[in-house]
């Protein structure tokens, strides 16, 4: 039983894990400072933001949508948190609830417009990208809100564990997302809707509530990411997370999620996040020039997907 399970994991994630391993190996070879404890902690500290967002994005892509507004939603949720704590002296707990609610509410608006009026989610979330960023500037008055130690606990390593609550929460979201996708009715319907919405409707299932929920989840994940990032920076920055949508989508697509909907895996997206994060960290540590950094990053992204594609073409069990 167990060995078969292990084999399955290797078959499914083997290509990506191999790419990741190669990247780690190269960096370890290039810099003796790379493969060490503090680097791992530093990577573990950075990835929660992108991980949360990639979890939500995976689901959105699977139902055949896209969410470009994630960066702005992160900034807006963070701004709400910052403004409540700094300007109105709210406690972290209650402010955090409103931070999450902000993300979820914006996600609901995205979903309601895209699905209610049958407008491409690309456009709706692009509109939201602009609007939420504008709203962020209104909420913060275009000023960085410095919150200070009150918010730091979330991103600080737990004593003894060396991992932060944010990191653990991100892992939990990955696990929950994967479970949701593969083991629940909700998840299977999401896959079905992304594959052939018309056929799902013909089966007598109302698709709108599922697609809508997925956008809400994506918004909520932005709220989670906002908590993680705000705590890491001890501040809410109105310019936070500009362009993160491309990184998140890249992580998903590296992980094999299809932009056409119907196919994807949360765990693979997480491996995608790891690849991106390790690459960034490693390149910074070996100190290549900025220009080369970009050239290498671009090349590795393409090569990672290329290798995975070749592997799965060779793997007869995958469609």
């Amino acid at each position, binding site marked *: 039983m167990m060995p078969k399970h292990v084999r399955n994991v290797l078959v499914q994630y083997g290509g990506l894990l191999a790419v990741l391993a190669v990247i780690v190996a190269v960096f370890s070879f290039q810099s003796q400072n790379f493969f060490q404890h503090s680097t791992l902690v530093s990577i573990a500290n950075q990835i929660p933001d992108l991980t949360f967002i990639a979890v939500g994005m995976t689901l959105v892509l699977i139902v055949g949508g896209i969410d470009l507004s994630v960066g702005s939603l992160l900034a807006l949720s963070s701004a709400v948190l910052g403004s409540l704590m700094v300007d109105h002296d709210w406690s972290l707990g209650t402010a955090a609830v409103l931070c999450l609610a902000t993300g979820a509410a914006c996600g609901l608006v995205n979903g309601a417009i895209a699905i209610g009026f049958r407008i491409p989610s690309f456009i709706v979330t692009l509109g939201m990208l602009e609007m939420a960023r504008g709203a962020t500037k209104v909420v913060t008055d275009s000023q960085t809100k*410095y919150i200070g130690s009150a918010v730091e606990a979330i991103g600080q390593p737990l004593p003894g564990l060396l991992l932060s609550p944010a990191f653990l929460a991100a892992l939990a979201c990955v696990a929950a997302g994967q479970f949701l996708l593969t083991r629940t009715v909700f998840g299977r319907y999401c896959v079905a809707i992304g594959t052939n919405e018309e056929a799902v409707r013909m089966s007598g299932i109302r698709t709108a509530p599922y697609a809508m929920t997925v956008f809400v989840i994506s918004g909520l994940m932005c709220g989670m990411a906002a908590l993680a990032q705000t705590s890491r920076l001890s501040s809410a920055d109105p*310019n936070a997370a500009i362009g993160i949508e491309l990184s998140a989508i890249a992580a998903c697509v590296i992980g094999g999620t299809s932009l056409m909907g119907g196919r994807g895996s949360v765990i693979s997206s997480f491996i995608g996040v790891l690849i991106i994060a390790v690459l960034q960290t490693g390149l910074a540590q070996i100190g290549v020039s*900025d220009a080369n950094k970009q050239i290498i990053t671009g090349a590795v992204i393409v090569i990672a997907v290329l290798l995975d594609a070749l592997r799965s073409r060779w793997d007869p069990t995958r469609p």
Partner: protein
Amino acid sequence: TTSTDADGTGDNGKPRVALIMKSLANEFFSTMADGAQAHQEENADDYALIVNGIKDERDLSRQVALVEEMVSSNVDAIVIAPADSKALVPALRRAQQAGVVVVNIDNRLDADVLKTEGITIPFVGPDNRAGAKKVGQYLANQLNGGDQVLVLEGIRTSFNAQQRREGFQQAMAEAGVEIVDSQSAEWEMSKANTIASSMLSEHPNAKAILAANDSMALGAVAAVRSAGRSDDVMIVGFDNISAVQQAIIDGKILATADQHGDQLAVFGIEAALKMLRDPDTKPEDVETPVDLIHQQTLTP
């Protein structure tokens, strides 16, 4: 607190200095990086240098990550031009706590936040307000009281953008010149071009555009040209990047401020090296010069 030195200086015992900047695609920072690299080559025996920048000037979460990554790769000092005056402070405090020497250049960290975090970080850099004021005054000499001018601001969350706006405002107020519109073009040339074009349509009587950096000034030059008003709208900038020098000689830009970007990092690195050599030195701010640049200064 020199525990990191023990292994960090492992290679040849040289201290390792990390220079963390904003967007390396902005000429200002590439000049800065070149200056630092040249300095390191001259002093190759004294220290090793790692240079890093972020994708664009707003990617501050990445910049915070860079700080952490540099700490974890055991550098001895960090010299940083922060993308945000507040949000970088906590990360820099953690760096200090890990025993890394930190020096702030270019864009000053927020004093209140530094106080709250209970740390001091020396600032090596120019007085941006004074520099902007100098440029503004030079422009005002060519204007009359009651004239209208336009302002292109930098990214509003950065301290130096705010300082330059204030410097412009002061100079204009003193000369009795009216700022009829002031918008942020986020340090970018093409954005500045769009915004300046529109402002010129809306304010046909404007006599000058004050841009908070040279990239935006170049965008404004193009806007003025396509509006066919090259002869009656003057432009000033800030930074003295090589691209504007020709434009100043050609008379397309009136003046800019040279904040000696190539030296800025060097000053910062030297301050850091000094603190490393002598851990007991009290960190002190260093004000670097800002010089007014115009046609006469460029054509001797």
